């Protein structure tokens, strides 16, 4: 019984249809959560006693930074599954994750830079989180670069899967070494937004944004995945029927 479910998940036509049905649910839920979270964070929550209104950028920066890592992990896991069990759809998922994750990383960097400008007066500081995010962006670009450099889709899938697994193992190592490096040199203070306890009025919108962005990732992934499957299976018979309907 479980195996049929597993095999269906690996079948491109099934996933193509499933993705189409699930996307509106994900999209609308994400939109509601994000709008709610933004309203709660930008309007309702009281100003921070230290940073005034500047802290509000954390409502975008922190969730996107978190997502950039989560998407990379998702990408690496689905790439590994595709590599070990030779499942094409898994590779399509990994390929779809990459641009989404890179975009999250980019947004995290931009919002982090803006926040830094408000806090320190400069658009860039080598604070550990920003530096780690930048290196993560390079990891994404490397993954996408490797994929585009190899013409044969199957080989591109499998080679980039090895890279994704190597990358995900390196992320904690890179993060630790950047933290260590930063602590040695008494660099500008880390963006410490979290006091031990945050008042609920600040915390709840933040959690809504986290959840909203996660579900938004789901929606974006489903949309990209459909396009990816369409591209990969373009010569298959089931595509003609699916597109006609």
């Amino acid at each position, binding site marked *: 019984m479980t195996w049929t479910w597993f095999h269906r998940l690996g079948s491109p036509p099934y996933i193509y249809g499933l993705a189409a049905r699930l996307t509106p649910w994900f999209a609308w839920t994400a939109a509601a959560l994000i709008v709610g979270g933004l309203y709660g964070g930008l309007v309702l929550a009281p100003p921070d006693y230290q940073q005034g209104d500047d802290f509000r950028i954390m409502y975008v920066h922190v969730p996107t930074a978190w997502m950039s890592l989560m998407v990379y992990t998702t990408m690496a896991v689905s790439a590994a599954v595709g590599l070990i069990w*030779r499942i094409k759809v898994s590779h399509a998922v990994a390929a779809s994750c990459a641009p989404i994750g890179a975009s999250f990383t980019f947004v995290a960097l931009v919002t982090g830079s803006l926040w830094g400008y408000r806090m320190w007066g400069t658009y860039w500081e080598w604070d550990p989180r920003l530096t780690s995010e930048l290196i993560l962006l390079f990891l994404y670009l490397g993954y996408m670069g490797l994929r585009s450099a190899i013409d*044969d*889709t*199957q080989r591109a899938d499998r080679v980039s899967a090895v890279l994704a697994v190597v990358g995900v193992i390196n992320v904690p190592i890179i993060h630790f070494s950047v933290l260590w490096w930063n602590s040695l040199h008494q660099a500008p203070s880390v963006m410490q937004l979290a006091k031990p306890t945050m008042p609920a009025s600040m915390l709840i919108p933040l959690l809504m944004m986290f959840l909203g962005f996660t579900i938004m990732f789901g929606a974006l992934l489903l949309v990209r995945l459909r396009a990816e499957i369409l591209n990969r299976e373009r*010569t298959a018979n089931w595509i003609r029927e699916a597109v006609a309907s």
Partner: protein
Amino acid sequence: MPERRLQAENLHLWRGDRHVLRGVRFAVNAGECLQITGGNGAGKTSLLRTLSGLMYPEEGSITWCGGNIRRDMQAFHADMAYIGHEPPLKPDLTAQENLHYWIGVRRPLPIDEINRELGRLGCDQWRNRPIRTLSAGQKRRVALAGLLLMAAPLWLLDEPTTNLDTEGQRLVGTLIEEHLAQGGLAVAAIHHELAVSSAVIRRLELSSK
């Protein structure tokens, strides 16, 4: 010891969108040589590479001595010698050095044995010259010496007579016949018929439709 036999069952292989191998099946027993023919692009090389374990078929299985080759690839490779289209030789090493490193990694190999096989294949004169100074036919002979030295029961050969003159082609035939007589097996992708007696030949034709 299980009987020496190579069996392929329902092999399907796709390269990109091309369905290269479409349900290939055959069996080769000890003392037999399977001759694979087919036009350019028919999949001869792909089939050989799949049999060697380098390529992975989407469907089907390959068994050696009754066991699936995927179960213990290292043991299978120890029993198998694969020579591709180009002889696998380093241009900057001499024939002798090439064989010493190439075969030595597989089984311990005294220099005398290397020189003896090189002599048997007519390579004495130039065994201490770097490979890049040799002609294509001479390189092919060195590769054949390597094949003999590997002492593997199963031979997978991709167009073994390329670049050889008539005498060389007859030599290949003789070597294969000797190998088969000792209980070995051979699978060869070819353009011309091998100079091997038809009693031991099995045939497989691949079409490139």
